[in-house]
């Protein structure tokens, strides 16, 4: 019950901060997606571009969440009430995920309806995009919270995760072609890159898996499982670290 009170307050704050920006930017991106040509909803290239653009926007919009709470000293006011630090992290994480997920699902529903009425074709593409976004964002946001607690700097956290989104995730995905030939028999280097790949959000693999699932082709849930597991590990680590951290 106590957690729910904090969660509802954080959600309201999150919603107020994100609502206008999310709707403006997502509508712009997805309208481009929808109205440029009739074949676009099925285009993998546009699909990927939209995915990373929206995720990048989510990173920018949420990177400062936990840091601002501690920087603006409101954390002291909250912790002077009967909450634990674990409650604060969990409420912040759940509110961030539910608000962005609800907005994403709502928008995908609206776009499915608009496209369906216009093209007389009920495409699952927008729903797929929403699921991909949500799965990736759950994991990404856990890592954003963790890095926020460790680095305490909004700019560094934002740049780091956008860098991961555009470069890091692609690099790790292509590690077998880029790293393995260089590493040769060095098991240690291979293990490091494999470990990072399975721990961090597998953005592009999740995208492929969800698209395959919704198009009734053979799909592998491994990437979704690993991405969500990595997110849970990051969230638990955040709680542990924040519990030990001293408020400055």
């Amino acid at each position, binding site marked *: 019950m*106590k957690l729910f*009170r*904090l969660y509802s*307050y954080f959600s309201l*704050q999150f919603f*107020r901060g994100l609502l206008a920006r999310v709707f403006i930017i997502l509508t712009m991106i997805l309208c481009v997606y929808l109205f440029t040509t009739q074949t676009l909803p099925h285009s993998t290239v546009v699909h990927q571009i939209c995915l990373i653009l929206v995720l990048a926007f989510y990173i920018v919009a949420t990177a400062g969440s936990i840091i601002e709470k501690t920087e*603006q*000293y*409101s954390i*002291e*006011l*909250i*912790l*002077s*009430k*009967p*909450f*634990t630090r674990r409650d604060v992290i969990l409420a912040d994480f759940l509110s961030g995920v539910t608000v962005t997920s609800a907005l994403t699902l709502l928008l995908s529903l609206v776009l499915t309806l608009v496209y369906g009425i216009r093209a007389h074709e009920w495409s699952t593409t927008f729903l797929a995009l929403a699921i991909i976004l949500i799965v990736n964002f759950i994991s990404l946001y856990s890592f954003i919270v963790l890095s926020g607690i460790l680095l305490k700097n909004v700019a560094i956290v934002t740049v780091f995760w956008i860098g991961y989104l555009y470069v890091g995730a692609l690099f790790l995905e292509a590690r077998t072609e880029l790293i393995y030939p260089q590493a040769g028999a060095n098991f240690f280097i291979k293990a490091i890159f494999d470990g990072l790949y399975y721990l961090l959000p597998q953005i592009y693999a999740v995208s492929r898996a969800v698209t395959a699932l919704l198009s009734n082709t053979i799909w592998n849930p491994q990437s979704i499982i690993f991405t969500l597991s990595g997110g849970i590990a990051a969230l638990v680590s955040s709680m542990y670290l924040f519990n030990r951290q*001293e*408020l400055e």
Partner: protein
Amino acid sequence: MSNIVEFQGIGKTFAKGFIRRRSIRAVNNVSLTLEEGETFCLIGPNGAGKTTLLRMLLDFIQPTSGYALLFGQPNNLPDLRERIGYFPERFKPPPALTIYQFLYHWGRFSGLRGTQLQSRITALLQFVRLEEKREAVMRTLSKGMAVRVGLAQALLNDPRLLILDEPTDGLDPLGRIEFRDILKELHTQGKTIFINSHLLSEVEQISQRVGIMKNGELVRVDTLEHLLAEKVKLRICFQCDSSETIAELKTHYTIYEKDGLMVVQLSDRNVLDEVLKKLTGAGAIIKNIEESKGVLEEEFLSIIKN
């Protein structure tokens, strides 16, 4: 009377610097207790360790030695905060909320609901004289109003212990007087108040007991009465023709002339009889004996300078 707050040999050392790590001892071996219903003020210059001590009490930072108890229990139990009201040094409420919305959410955090919460908010807004500003947005409030909102949020759960960290900092004189009146009223309601301040004139008017911190150490804890009694000044106004007696007294005490009379100033009441005996023995006519109370500032300065 039970102990509401207890520090036992508490200390805190911070490690500063990224490459060259160095230790800074912010609080050193402080032991202190606060009894129920008292108003206790912690004073000291900037950097004396007052805020660090409060932050350890609220478990925002962990002590490197010793421990703190709240209501006789370890201070890290979250449920204890249901009995505490806290006003932080850097009070920054969410800027987009109205006063009412802010108090509503913070009231819910304290476990209040429905009509109980509504009536509590109304009563507190009246108490801090902000009932007409309930729909004002936090970012538009003056410093004085923000402080009163901060006090209202600290009182939402009707706490037994009120912890205020530099509450009158940045307030204008009128704001300070209003704030002082509110604290006096809270004291009559039986609240235990722990104030951290460096505004000595304020402290002097609201506290029963004072602790003086210097370089992380609690150098003196005493009732305000005792502290001020030590700085009592006695002035004897007299007429005397014996220059030898005056010269002798001058070697021990401050003597000056005022309105045609000689005045000898004593800072210790115990020597009064001895001086009077000397003066009357020399044929002096005692016109008047005045007593003036010391001020906290003098005691504070003498402790800090020593």
